[in-house]
């Protein structure tokens, strides 16, 4: 599939670049937009962004690799990111990882064979008062927080997520 913004994304792109005194400054929001459009940040996507912003491709590569929210590989439709920093660790964050590994049948860093879920461990997500918690990042760019988790709640959340994922494409097929 061609790497080109849809009409709607193009309108967002124009709005984004109008907010900054130069195009380079629009890099972060434009990469977010590109990831939600194209599923992941491939070399083609980086080239496209460089082209659209009229900046050197190394500048895009630089940002795309420095920031952890940009996926340089296609991953699952839903990226479950469990916080295991101190406050969450104290409240059972690692147990949530254990439980998810068992339930999804994968280890941290892996993707389920159906391409639905990728599981990761991440650092503090500013949710320490509602620990343990995880964040679900969808391939359409949406992010949702799930807080005050225990095994029972994780089961419920996975059910909700599975329903939502029916309608989403696999990131690897998004461009």
């Amino acid at each position, binding site marked *: 599939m061609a790497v080109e913004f849809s009409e709607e994304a193009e309108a967002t792109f124009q709005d984004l670049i109008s*907010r*900054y*005194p*130069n195009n*380079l*400054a*629009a*890099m*972060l*929001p434009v*990469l*977010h937009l590109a990831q939600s459009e194209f599923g992941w940040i491939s070399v083609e996507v980086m080239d496209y962004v460089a082209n659209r912003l009229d*900046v050197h491709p190394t*500048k895009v590569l*630089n*940002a795309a690799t*420095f*920031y*952890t*929210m*940009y996926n340089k590989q296609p991953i699952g439709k839903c990226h479950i*990111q469990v916080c*295991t*920093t*101190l*406050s969450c*660790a*104290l*409240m059972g*964050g*690692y*147990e949530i*990882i*254990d439980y998810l*590994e068992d339930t999804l049948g994968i280890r*941290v*860093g892996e993707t389920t064979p159906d391409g639905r879920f990728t599981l*990761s*461990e*991440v*650092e*503090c*997500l*500013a*949710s*320490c*008062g*509602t*620990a343990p918690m995880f*964040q679900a990042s969808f391939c359409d760019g*949406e*992010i949702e*927080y799930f807080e005050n988790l225990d095994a029972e709640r994780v089961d419920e959340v996975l059910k909700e997520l599975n329903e939502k994922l029916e309608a989403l494409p696999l990131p690897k097929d998004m461009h």
Partner: protein
Amino acid sequence: MTEEKSDKTEKSKETTEEAAEEKAEETVEETEQAEKAEEGGEAKAAEEKKAKKSLPKPKAAAKKKPTPRKDEKYLSRNFEIPNAHNLDVYEANGGYRALKKAMKMDGEEIIEEVKKSNLRGRGGAGFPCGIKWSFLPKESDVPKYLVINADEGEPGTFKDRYLMELDPHRHIEGCIIAAWALGIRYCYIFVRGELQFAQRRLNQAIKQAYDAGYLGKNILGQDFDFDIYVHPGAGAYICGEETGLIEGLEGKSGQPRMKPPFPAVVGVFQAPTIVNNVETISSIPFIIENGGQWFADMGIEKNGGPKLYGLSGPVNNPGVYEAPSGITIRELLERYGGGMRDGHELKAFIPGGSSCAVLKPDALDAQMGFETMREAGSSMGTACITFMDTNTCMVRVAARLAHFYHHESCGQCTPCREGSGWAAKVLDSIEAGRGRMEDLDLLLDMCDNIQGNTICALGDSIAIPVRSYLQVFPEEFEDHIKRQSCPYPAWSKRKTSADSDAA
């Protein structure tokens, strides 16, 4: 109420209690003034204000009953009000009154009030806000910028999120007042990329503010243009450091800059820039409405104002609470946090995010202020406290935090990049039962070599906590080494801290 007050009008205040009461009354009085001004009596209100300034604070008649000060809410006032994130509800609850009042003051006057308020930066470093503001050049050939640090990422910290999600207009009002006072043309709110809900709420509120004429051109009919944009981060803790934030805003990797020059002189897009934390700016409307002195009085020496405190760990009621500056940690834990959970005994706590030194329960009576917490052996940081119980292994905590900082180091400075990884490795080996006694001195040595030798304060954020765990709980490290194992319950079936480096 009214009679009682006017009765006292002539008397000067005698007791501190009365003084406190008077403050609350002044609030109401100023509100009235603002209302009057709105009704078209600007000149009269201004005159009255002038007259009042020169008098030794006479008591004024109050229409509304002031509630007891201690439990009065400011920053969190709107958290419980349904739909306070919408402009109409915000305005119905007194919103944008402070802005209208501010726009009748000149910039110098506002900066003076902020100085008087003892408002300290709420992002962790505690720099006096008014003084920072006074560093911004008055005249500038290029537009000046306000950059809001909403990158909230310090482990244990989760307060700014509430301000953005539940009371976004308060924050926007604070930004507009700052811009008016400082002659700023543009503002970017740099929000952590993950906090999408906060971004949505802010964007929605900004749109409403444009529609109502609080943003854009000729704000409230005056010769004042100001625009605000939300800028999303993309997952890098180091963008919380103010110059890393500026780099990230310019579209580059968030590698901190050498200082000086400070952002006030050369900031974003090479222009004079004020970087402030979300809570700092959300406090500004209250200072304008009630006066700098009122704000300063709600605190202790050099630390003024109501403040948000976050409580996390095994306490009964974790969460974000509002209380005056200078409250003790014991009161926060017992009164707001409901104490430790049943079966969990307090062993240690971190006062304001993981880069602060760890303290033992004997420091519970320390007051939350930048100087007082330093005297207690730590720092106030972000004032979000992590409580740990007696089941918590201090070696593992130190190792986990070293991994965090290693993961987040931007890599520019060798002591930070290499030191954090090395410290994490040594701590892991002690935790895993392979430690040697000489490792302890080695770790302390490493801390000395990192601290003060790096471009940004992330280096210190590794050295200070790691050293503190070693010094506050030396017996625990020695015990691990002697028995060549960790006596505490594991965090996970499979993982030990030795493989706890986050993805």
